[in-house]
């Protein structure tokens, strides 16, 4: 029996460690799960409270729908998966890659006005980047510049 090679004290602490780990894991997971959906999937699931409030939605910016108010940071636009559309408001600086037709990933929740209020926005240029390291990095760049979270890598929170 392999376990007999460890003293009971050690075995008990190993088990305690694993349990502690599992608890930590469960709490962490519960607090930060976000559904990642296409525009159509998101619209189909609207009103389902069991999925949580925050969502990540993927789609393309409908050309010509980007509206900006001078002096106000952010933009309003519509995003689509090719068939259906979702109106989005975003209140932070938009990334360089956010233009007509670019692929975007927004994270946020639906507001009382029926518009999707995004707290983060990632944008990928229409044709420029492939799903490669380059595209990923560009995407990440734009995401993080926009995310504007005080501490994206904070161990403290």
């Amino acid at each position, binding site marked *: 029996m*392999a376990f*007999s*090679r*460890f*003293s009971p004290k*050690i075995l008990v*602490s*190993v088990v305690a*460690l694993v349990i502690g*780990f599992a608890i*930590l*894991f469960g*709490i*962490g*997971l519960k*607090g*930060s*799960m*976000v*559904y*990642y*959906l*296409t525009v159509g*999937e998101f619209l189909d699931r609207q009103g389902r409270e069991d999925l949580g409030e925050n969502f*990540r939605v*993927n789609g393309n910016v409908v050309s010509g729908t980007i509206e900006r108010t001078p*002096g106000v*940071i952010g933009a309003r636009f519509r995003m689509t998966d090719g068939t259906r559309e979702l109106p989005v408001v975003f209140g932070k*600086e938009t990334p*360089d*890659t956010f*233009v007509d037709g670019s692929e975007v*990933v927004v994270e946020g929740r639906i507001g009382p006005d029926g518009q999707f209020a995004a707290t983060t926005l990632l944008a990928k*240029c229409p044709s*420029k*980047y*492939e*799903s*490669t*390291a*380059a*595209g*990923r*990095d*560009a995407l*990440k*760049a734009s*995401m*993080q*510049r*926009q995310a*504007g979270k*005080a*501490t*994206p*890598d*904070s*161990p*403290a*929170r």
Partner: protein
Amino acid sequence: MADFGTLCLLMALATAGWAMVASYNGWRIQSGELILSAERAVLATWGLVALAIVALEHLIFTDRFDLEYVASYSNRALPAMYKVAALWAGQSGSILFWVFILCTYSVIVVLLHRRRNRALMPVVVTTLSGVTVFFLLLLCFLARPFVGLSHAPPDGMGMNPQLQNPFMAIHPPCLYLGYVGLTVPFAFAIAALATGKTSDTWFRTTRRFTIVSWFVLGTGILLGGWWAYVELGWGGYWAWDPVENASFIPWLTTTAFLHSVMIEERKKMLRVWNMSLVIMSFLLSILGTFITRSGVISSVHSFTRSDIGPMFAGFLGLCVVVSVGLLLHRLPLLQSEHRLDSFVSRESTFLFNNLLLVGAAFAVLWGTLFPIISEAVRGVKITVGPPFFNEIFVPITFAIMTLSAICPIIAWRRATPHKLLEKIRIPFGAMVAATALMVAFGMRDLYALVSFALSAFVIATTVMEFYWGTRARRRATQERWLAAFWNLLDRNKRRYGGFVVHLGIVLIVIGVTGSSAFKKEASATLGRGEAFSVGRFELRLEEIVSRDTPNHEFLGARLAVLDGGHQVGTLLPGQNFYKAGQDPSSEVDIRSTLREDLYLIMTGFDPQQGRATLKAYINPLVNWIWIGGLVLILGSWFAMLPDLRERRRTAEARLRELQPHAI
């Protein structure tokens, strides 16, 4: 030229395939000729892959845009340095580069070990060639670098400007060197299992490969963080992005291995565990390569739609079956020779350190793969964000730091509480003093307090360890302090190199803590002469600057940095507008000191009113991350230097294996 490249790859596939088959059969029937032939085939494969790389680079340098790869990742104006780097800008090119590194490692292994390790080498060659064959299959049939276009565009699309940064040019090769290097210990582990020669030769032989891979992987991760920090303009360096995680997971498991292997060396314990760690690290490096190259996780689209996904999944599955099968088969040989009986012993701190590191690796892996797992189980992608990783990682880091403070002062086998208390007194006192000082200076952030206190604890133990060692040596040899100190280090390179690495890690932890717990930010839209403040700094817009270069136009804002009313410098953040029509990219400007970085981005400019929108961050202590990185590099180098004692031990181990009953 493109056909020549394709031909090289096909021939390389043939030679690598031959190396695999010949080596395996040579081992089965003990035919020296077949084994020799296989080893030569390894050299030939290297030559052919090198030629394919030369062919691709030639096509890039001669602007052959009728080739899809060249048209996608290069253009005429691209500087020569980045034309070299274009080799690993895309999927097929980077796989080609991956294979080249693997072949290079294989050649080094063959040249170094074919005489020294005759028993293991045939299987090592079989394994290395098997992995090579897989990646060559990808290159020849799925991710083909030499595919032509029916209509050649007049110019290529060029490289993403954000990747045109010296760090970015060396960051991927570093990561690949690390990833691929993990194949070597894996191959030796498989060879040890297959031949049944599972005593310590395999890991002693590969220790240097493992440390080198671990070190290069770590350096690559740090370089990536640095690049993100200076280039991406969001004020941070790490975001728990799938690609970052993919390189971090094997680094964690390799770190665990480097520790637990010491237990196997000394005590012949944890042998199954060590085998598993090496196998796991290799599998994770393959998974990491796949995640990095396919972008499968960040995409909302299904995993199965990735063209190389099923191939990778199949290959990983095959590796799991083979290695787990071998491991189970040889389980009786891997029995521990000793019992881990004392809770308060260095062995047990190593055991817990390993559990924590592997637990951390598992958590990061789970969080990273969660979208794929949830899609498979529930049909919908669910992502987990940075909070998940932070929540798990912070307590684990604290626990690991506590262990690394206690571990060096705790005795092997069974520590007496009395001795331990005597040794721990000073470091513990240092920790308490540091905490009291921080509280006295008004620090109230709990996480930061714990983190800094533990850092003080580890630093104190490590410094004391150097001191105690020197003192003991001085007493024994009557040398002077400096001579005793140097000789101590020189004779125990691994031990003290390892301690230096610990110090580097602590500095990184200090930097990460400072820059996350005490980060400040502010943003404002300013006209000329207007100012805004962030932390203790005031930033005043002096003028708008525009510059024209052949490649791009730069538009920036010059700001005076005032600290308490006195000007301490100027910063010039701006944006580059590329003439090739690429998206503009932000150029951040940083005022960097040991105390903090003042990080400034120009996020927008209104030409009509001449007003610039700016975002400023104060990142305290962030420089210590990079300083810690340098210390880590220094320590690793020192630990890798040739060590007489170690060479003797390896020779002894090999001898034992040849004549099991002689010693």
